[in-house]
């Protein structure tokens, strides 16, 4: 995995602020955060509700924009991209894993995993093969034709992970990936994330409330009221 700045960082957050406006009120969610995530690192963001951890994750993933500060992810200054450029950048560099899986209910498992590949120039058979490979990595190739309603929570999350890795992004961001799972399924997901980090060298940034999940990470950052407490 290549690193493209002086720190060898996949993610470089410099004095990032995020302020929301609600009617006439301004709400500061992130108040000058700075942190680096090295390439290949597994980082957990923790903190109480409202601390800004999900906001920070969204900024790293490029689905929100900082109010001020600089954010470099996978070698790109995310704040300098237009909306269209940001969308393209996300499709190539970011794999997002949601807490509630967010699979498309009318698509089968393999069709869900294929979704990001529709944005590429791959042929239909190439898309299908890559999707099946991603499902194999997460151990669900025998469920490729099942629909989300036919899968357990853990299986749905594994399909979501397959969807996140199918384009081979350098950075995976996970928002409470085990938040909706029982202990056993959560353990399976965390093991999978471990594998993606150690064997496939994916940089992982994970938001979690779960101390057991956080233990899997190399580094834990604690946020409180929009500031890093480490």
């Amino acid at each position, binding site marked *: 995995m290549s690193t493209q700045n002086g720190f060898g960082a996949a993610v470089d957050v410099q004095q990032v602020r995020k302020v929301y406006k609600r009617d006439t009120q301004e709400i500061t969610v992130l108040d000058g955060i700075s942190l680096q995530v090295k390439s290949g690192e597994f980082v957990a963001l923790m903190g109480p509700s409202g601390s800004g951890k999900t906001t920070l994750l*969204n900024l790293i*993933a490029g*689905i*929100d924009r900082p109010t001020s500060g600089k954010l470099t992810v996978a070698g790109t200054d995310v704040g300098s991209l237009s*909306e*269209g450029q940001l*969308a*393209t*950048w*996300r*499709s*190539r560099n*970011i794999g*997002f894993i*949601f807490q*509630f899986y*967010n699979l*498309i*209910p*009318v*698509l089968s498992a393999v*069709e869900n995993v294929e*979704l*990001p590949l*529709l*944005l590429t120039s791959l042929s*239909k058979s190439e898309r299908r093969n890559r999707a099946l490979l991603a499902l194999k990595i997460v151990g669900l190739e025998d469920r490729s034709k099942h629909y989300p309603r036919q899968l357990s929570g853990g299986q749905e999350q594994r399909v979501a992970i397959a*969807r996140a890795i199918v384009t081979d992004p350098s950075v995976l961001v996970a928002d409470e990936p085990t938040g909706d799972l029982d202990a056993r399924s959560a353990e399976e997901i965390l093991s999978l994330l471990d594998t993606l980090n150690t064997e496939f060298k994916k940089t992982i940034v994970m938001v979690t409330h779960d101390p057991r999940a956080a233990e899997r990470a190399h580094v834990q950052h604690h946020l409180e009221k929009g500031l890093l407490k480490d």
Partner: protein
Amino acid sequence: MKYLPYMLKHLRRNWIRTSTTIVGIAVCVFLFCVLRSVLAAVDYGMQSGNANRLITRHAVGLTQQIPVTYQERIRAVPGVKRVAIANWFNGFLGMPPDYRNFFANFAIDPEEYLDMHPEFVLTPDERTAFITDRRGAVVGKELADKHGWKLGSTFQLESTIPPYRVGKPFDFIVRGIYTADKVKNPGTDLTMMFFHFKYLYEATNQRVGVGTYSLQIEDPKQAPAVAKAIDALFENSDAQTKTETEAQFIAGFFALAGNLALLLNLIGTAVAFTILLVTANTMSMAVRERRKEIAVLKTLGFPSGLVMMLILGEALLIGLLGGGVGLLLGGAMIGAMPQMPMIGDLVRGFPNFGMTWPVASLGLGFALFLSLAAGLIPAVTAFRARITDMLRTV
């Protein structure tokens, strides 16, 4: 095309909602095609009127008759070239009469009527045979083919008009089968039948009058002046007349239903607007349900423009399906209308009644426009929505 399976799968997401929306659009297109076809047939029929022919009738209405003696007085009006009696007989075939088998039949002055209607093409022998046989009949080719009539075939008609009922049917023998030059005279009706007015006049003991006089004038530009002169002749008579061009006469039938074009267009517009609102609401609900999904697509890197096009694509597919169903139903209805009671009597008089390619194309285009209009606001909403806002659990 690679997104087509994705769009089709979403149509099946809530198949009840999708199918009822398709049915709604189909109803709209069905109504549009049927109403436009009727209006097109009316317009086409009106074009069949000849500019140098006038019709004189009783000023009160077509159910009133004017005296036979008016013919020579009308002939004497400057500018009038020919005058022929043309009485609507309203006869039906068979004993007892078969009221389902309607066709237009008229009692005419054969020589003068045929002279002023060159669009009815007969051979010289047929024309002579018809003129010389008081019981002779001339029928249109489509009518003859329908009943298997050939020259010399016989049939009977009995009228439903009381003064024309003489206690027994009228006997006819086919002396001529007329055709038409469809290029020169495209609106010519080949389903009519003509016979001698003198046969009717004598069979009723000379008690009947004239329903209409068909006139040919020297100069079409003089039509208003000639019409005025004729009506002035009988202004102070018991049977006052109204003289108008053939096109005005035909248009008058449809004016009996009020401003037909306006009425039909208003109905069509009201239905279309209602369906538009319903479809727009349906699309909005569908997009609102898929907030998270739209957020996921954008997170995965789908550009906002592509997301918007996917939603519009789904709307277009619904429009296409609805339009197709509407066209099929409209075509079936238009095909069946001539056989329907009451409605059939009206539309069978239109020589060109049917769903044309322009009407079908307009109908389908209308369906696509309707669905695009309905899908536009939800699509734009999806385009503009922020990922983080849509990911929030509602």
